[in-house]
């Protein structure tokens, strides 16, 4: 009868458009128009204050692309993504699997406790962890001192600073990813897993050959979300703790764009960087739409 679940009416229906009007207005005002305006600004030299903007064509883009710092920042961004995915995709996946299949008790407690930091401001988290992880005078440093271990000064160490900032961000992000992956895994039919177990299939094979493929749409969703939202989340600890330093070691595309825009007041540069970041994300978007939305139809 009605194949695609719609209230198909014969005449042109104004109703859906009516319902969509509020979102249209809000999004046009605060998302789509700003997007176009930023694109426009990327061709100008402006400091947000003076009444005149100087048209410079693609100079800003060239300046960004020829600046060696840009490549450092781009590599940092990739490094951030890598660490974030490791901590917030791989680990929660395994944890969700374990919670579903190996652990029998305290399930509710674990879920509640792990999801809890998601409800706390990351500003609070950043300040807390800066003190807790203070390599000279913080609590961890003191305990390490008992064992004669001296903590590296992570806020001044290239590479390590990105790891620590990612860890702080993950404190908040881990819970949501964990719950979502758990949701997907616990929805997998019991019989298949039972059958595999009775056949003596080892757990890690069950994970790789059954769980992963079947929950893949959730996996890809979390993958994409972690990259897109994670990179924006790390902005907060960077802003609170290192301000992109030392010497751009902890800066990424998003932070640098903000830095150019609201700290150095180079509006055109900031806009150009933002647009380029957008392109990178756009590619990720295409992947998401192919996998997840297709996955949805596949299930149906």
């Amino acid at each position: 009868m009605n194949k695609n679940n719609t209230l198909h009416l014969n005449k042109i229906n104004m109703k859906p458009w009516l319902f969509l009007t509020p979102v249209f207005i809000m999004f046009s005002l605060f998302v789509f128009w700003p997007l176009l305006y930023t694109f426009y600004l990327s061709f100008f030299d402006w400091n947000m204050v003076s009444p005149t903007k100087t048209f410079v064509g693609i100079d800003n883009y060239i300046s960004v692309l020829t600046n060696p710092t840009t490549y450092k920042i781009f590599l940092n961004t990739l490094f951030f993504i890598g660490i974030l995915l490791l901590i917030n995709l791989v680990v929660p996946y395994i944890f969700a699997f374990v919670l579903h299949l190996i652990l029998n008790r305290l399930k509710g407690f674990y879920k509640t406790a792990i999801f809890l930091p998601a409800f706390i401001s990351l500003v609070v988290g950043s300040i807390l962890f800066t003190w807790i992880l203070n390599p000279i005078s913080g609590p961890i440093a003191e305990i390490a001192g008992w064992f004669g271990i001296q903590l590296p000064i992570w806020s001044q160490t290239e590479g390590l600073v990105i790891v620590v900032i990612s860890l702080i961000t993950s404190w908040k992000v881990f819970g949501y990813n964990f719950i979502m992956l758990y949701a997907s895994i616990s929805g997998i039919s019991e019989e298949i897993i039972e059958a595999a177990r009775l056949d003596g299939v080892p757990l890690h094979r069950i994970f790789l050959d059954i769980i992963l493929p079947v929950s893949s749409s959730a996996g890809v969703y979390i993958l994409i979300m972690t990259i897109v939202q994670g990179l924006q989340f790390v902005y907060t600890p960077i802003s609170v703790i290192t301000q992109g330093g030392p010497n751009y070691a902890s800066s990424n595309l998003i932070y640098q764009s903000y830095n150019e825009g609201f700290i150095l007041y180079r509006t055109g540069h900031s806009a150009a960087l933002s647009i380029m970041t957008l392109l990178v994300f756009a590619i990720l978007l295409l992947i998401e739409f192919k996998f997840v939305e297709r996955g949805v139809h596949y299930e149906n």
Partner: protein
Amino acid sequence: MRTNSFLGILWHTIFILTVFILIFPIIFALGTSFKPLQEVYNNVLNIIPIAPTFDNYIGLFERLPMIQITMNTFTIATVVTIMKMLISFLAAYAFVYFDFKGKKFIYFIFIASIFIPFTVTMIPNYLIMSSWGLADSIFGVILPQISDAIGILLINQTMRSIPFSLIESARIDNISHSRIMIDIILPLIRPQLMSTGIWFFVNSWNEFVWPSLMLKSVDSYTLPLALQMFISAEGGTDLSVAMAVSIVTMIIPLLLYLVFQKYIIGTFTASGIK
């Protein structure tokens, strides 16, 4: 089932450790907020203060208009949540129950907006709000926050879980759309909507970047902004008061979470991406 008990113990240990790492900072914040600053520096490991004091909280409420700040945070979060729920609900209804030209495309555009980093929209939004005279006001903070496509995504998923036949028969009986929304759909997905609402509320409550751009006078601050007042390069971070602010900031979201956690976790667990 019959799990290898060694594996069980191993994983329980790992989980307990993880929980400890995640929860410890909160307990630490609580303890520190009751310590005088001197103790914070010199008594680093004790979670329980040797000389507990309410001074940090009292001083905080005396020096800053904390009630006003909390009200600002609350008002912003409430308005944002309600507006987001409303427009997302309407939009989701249109996407789930109607077919129209360009639907796929439009849906795609909205979902695509999730991928737009905030740096792309922040400058123009800032300029728009300033030119509308909303620079230091809660409306300046509220309006752009409403355009969040995640709302459409979440409510979309939730609505799809309702058996279509229910809606179909209602339409056949010629029940109006508003009645369908309020009398049929709403009651069925109330727990999910509540959970989504709480999620929006807490996210807005904890939001820092956008309010920090918009709100400049202390009277209009939100709680996360009040927090960064206590971190000063010149005078040193007053960690004990900063922790007091942190705790005040945490209370409402944590309360909401702990009271409604069954619903919240249930909703997120059930929705999943199927």
